[in-house]
């Protein structure tokens, strides 16, 4: 009853095919459409991001790729294989890091890795040394015997990632890898993921943190309400959908819209528009975002005209601005 894949399929699965191909991929729960006919391709060795707010359909897409959720429509190939027809083969090629760490609290740190490998049918002898290697990679060697519950949040996250690497996956799926971690723990984690990327593992990650997407993704799609809003490299998306710089201004409550109108007239005037590179102003409840190629110049113009914001900040455009431009909403509610 058991057999290896046929040589032809083995080849399809291991070399030629892209890591993931999705076309018109759809998932509906009753009346609710979580994923609405999206298309994307992830090349091997690429680091690919799904960016979007909570409820955009990122996790649902991830679950379909991970061969644990049935799609309602469309096509999906992972390593050239249909996850619904070849569930075990697909899962054997994947490493999955779910949004919530679901480590086995009844086992020690080390046993978590070994037992997870056993679920893939890997021999224990191989796993004993593999576990050492992965614990070192995750900087957890000193915690090998510890209980899972004694680990910090960052350590648990690293253990979940180490565990997902036990089968040397071709594709690593990371659902919100650093949500809920402190900045230092995030940087440690990013460093580890960067190494994986360098070693050739395909990374697919969802995030609603722009800085994370900018750090880790070669290419990403911006998803909102189950549909793709834009696709490209982080830098390319910013160039396409935003200005080089942003001026953030706070004027105190309740006056934002009114001031925005005044400022638009001021900055959009023909005599200064070219120098400032003014594009538009976004009005947020607590602040104004002035999109301009030269934010400092816009700032000077403001002061010259007698406007005195409570605080002001000049910064580079980020993916957050891209998302705001595309959807009219901010990413983190």
């Amino acid at each position: 009853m058991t057999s290896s894949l046929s040589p032809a399929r083995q080849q399809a699965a291991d070399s030629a095919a892209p890591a993931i191909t999705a076309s018109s991929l759809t998932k509906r729960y009753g009346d609710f459409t979580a994923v609405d006919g999206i298309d994307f391709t992830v090349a091997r060795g690429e680091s690919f991001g799904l960016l979007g707010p909570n409820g955009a359909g990122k996790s649902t897409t991830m679950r379909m790729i991970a061969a644990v959720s049935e799609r309602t429509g469309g096509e999906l190939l992972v390593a050239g294989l249909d996850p619904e027809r070849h569930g075990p083969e697909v899962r054997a090629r994947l490493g999955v890091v779910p949004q919530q760490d679901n480590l086995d609290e009844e086992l020690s740190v080390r046993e978590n890795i070994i037992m997870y490998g056993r679920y893939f049918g890997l021999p224990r002898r191989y796993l004993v040394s593999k576990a050492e290697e992965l614990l070192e990679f995750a900087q957890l060697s000193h915690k090998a015997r510890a209980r899972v519950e004694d680990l910090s949040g960052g350590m648990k996250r690293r253990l979940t990632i180490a565990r997902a690497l036990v089968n040397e996956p071709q594709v690593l799926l990371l659902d919100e890898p650093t949500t809920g971690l402190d900045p230092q723990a995030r940087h440690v984690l990013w460093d580890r993921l960067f190494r994986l990327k360098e070693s050739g593992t395909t990374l697919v990650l969802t995030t609603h943190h722009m800085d994370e997407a900018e750090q880790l993704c070669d290419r990403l799609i911006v998803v909102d309400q189950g549909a793709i809003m834009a696709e490209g490299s982080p830098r390319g998306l910013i160039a396409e959908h935003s200005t080089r710089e942003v001026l953030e201004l706070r004027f105190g409550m309740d006056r934002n819209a009114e001031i925005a109108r005044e400022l638009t007239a001021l900055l959009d005037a023909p005599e200064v528009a070219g120098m400032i590179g003014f594009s538009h102003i976004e009005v947020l409840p607590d602040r104004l975002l002035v999109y301009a190629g030269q934010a400092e110049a816009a700032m000077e113009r403001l002061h010259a005209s007698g406007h005195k914001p409570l605080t002001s900040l000049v910064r580079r455009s980020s993916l957050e601005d891209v998302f705001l431009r595309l959807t009219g909403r901010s990413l983190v509610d």
Partner: protein
Amino acid sequence: MTGSPAADKDVLARRVRRWGALYQAEATLRSMRAYGGVVLFSSTFQPIVYILAMGLGLGVLIGAETDFSAYGADSYLMYIAPAILASTVAMTAGTEFTFPVMEGFKWRRKYYGAQATALSPQQIALGHILGVCCRFAVHALIFIGVLFAFGVLASPLAVLMVFSAVLGGLAMGLPIMAYISTLRDEKGHAALIQRFIIMPLFLFSGTFYPLTNLPGFLQVVGWISPIWHANELGRVLAFGQPGPPWMVAVHLGYLAGVAFLAWLVVRRVFIRRLGYEEWPGRVPGLKSDLRRQAKQDAKDADEARAEAGRVAGAQMTGAAPRANAPATGSGVGAGLPPVTFRTGVASSYYSGNIRAVFARGLAAIRNNRGVIFLSGFLEPVLFLTSFGLGVSPMISGIEAEQAGLAGQDTISYAAFIAPALLAVSAMNGAVFDSTWNVFFKLKITKLYQTMMSTSLGPVDVAVGEICLALFRGGIYALGFLGVLLGAGLVGPASAVLMWFTALFIALGFACIGMAATSFMKRFQQMDWMMMVLIPMFLFSATLFPIDVYPAGVQWVIQALPLWHGVELMRDIAFWQFSGLTLVHLGYYLAMIVAGGALAAYRMKRLFLR
């Protein structure tokens, strides 16, 4: 903001200092509402079930030979009714002072939410206790109402049993709360307390018979047991059980004393944990963990050495060296052994790796303490001891014919109930493993979600879990049968056959349990299911022959699975087989096939949600 009730902080602080415990009690009661239906139903249902099963069923047997007028009661039912009230309240204490306390400190950290408000640690503790007291009182009032309706209470003083029962519940529950609240983590402690403390204190508390029926050393357990003191108080109140007045004072003093001392400890522990000291609690089993890990380290070192030797050998013969980089990730790397896959229609369901699921279960059992695992067989032994020794003096035995067996002999009461208890223990274990345990891993620990993201299929997981349940059940049955053999209640040939039968019965219940779990959405539904098991245990001809009931009731009982299990065990124990034996076997076969098929059909629903 004037006018806001939150405006004057000093008034708030004063109010909380005065009434804080009541606010916490309100929170405790409100969180009980989640299973309020179960609470009310069980309070009504439990007395009725006990009255019908024990009072009327067992009462037919006992009443024929034993007179309870010396104790002031008209009937067996009247004699046990107040004791059942006190016992059920005290047993409830075992749940209300264990899991909710762990929930407060660890699982949901509710107490830490309260700690951040103006409440003091001792108010949090007292509030929890008051909330639970309300539950006890409601339970007791409904119970008393039902008993009045059945006309088994002679005196209006019986209403005062609310107080004696609540006091008994506190004397039972507060020491448990004191212990549980010192724990940083619960590793089966509640189960241990249930099996080693609550069950013995309940079974040897003179609930179903006068304590004096037991041999002296077991009577001591009764004197210690708060349940016995609460029982005796209840009997005095319900039908004026005669006895020296100072005994009433002893009962009251004992219960109040235990409850008060335990309260002092509870208070101290809560102040330590929720006060400025911020004591995180004891790590249970820390020393034994360290010992075990040292042993495991040594074993791993050996394995690593052996592996290093192999690699070195491979390099000598010119084979490629193992990739040393962490997680090469370059597809099927040099170090990754080949993995084979099953093909065909079932391959998405079954990967042929049940072993791994079973091994994970064994590892988890090993990491938990062995005593928890082994204690499972204790329950039937305790039941057998209590009923065998306590009830036997009141009846001269069961007529063979009455027990559905050929011949004119009389069977000792212990020999009559022993096979039934084995069947019950097989049922309980299998149902618990296939419902609660599965649901817990599905919903709380998300273990199955993890397993499903690997090559494993749902069938691997389901079969692996059933194998684990049978493994555990097999060991428990072995222990119990050892006791029966030692006591001369069964022969060796019967014992061997009964062991296999116990597994067979367990398999039947496990299949049905799995299938039922696939329909479950919330934990409360689990509680309802447990409520089916208690009456099934009490009615299925376990503790008395089925012929005490009218024909109509007999048919209902004969339709239930446990009755067939009990009868099957008896057929084997007394080595008397008939056509009915085949019917019993067939019934379980049908359960296994139907339950297994339904579970398989709903397999994805069960694990992939």
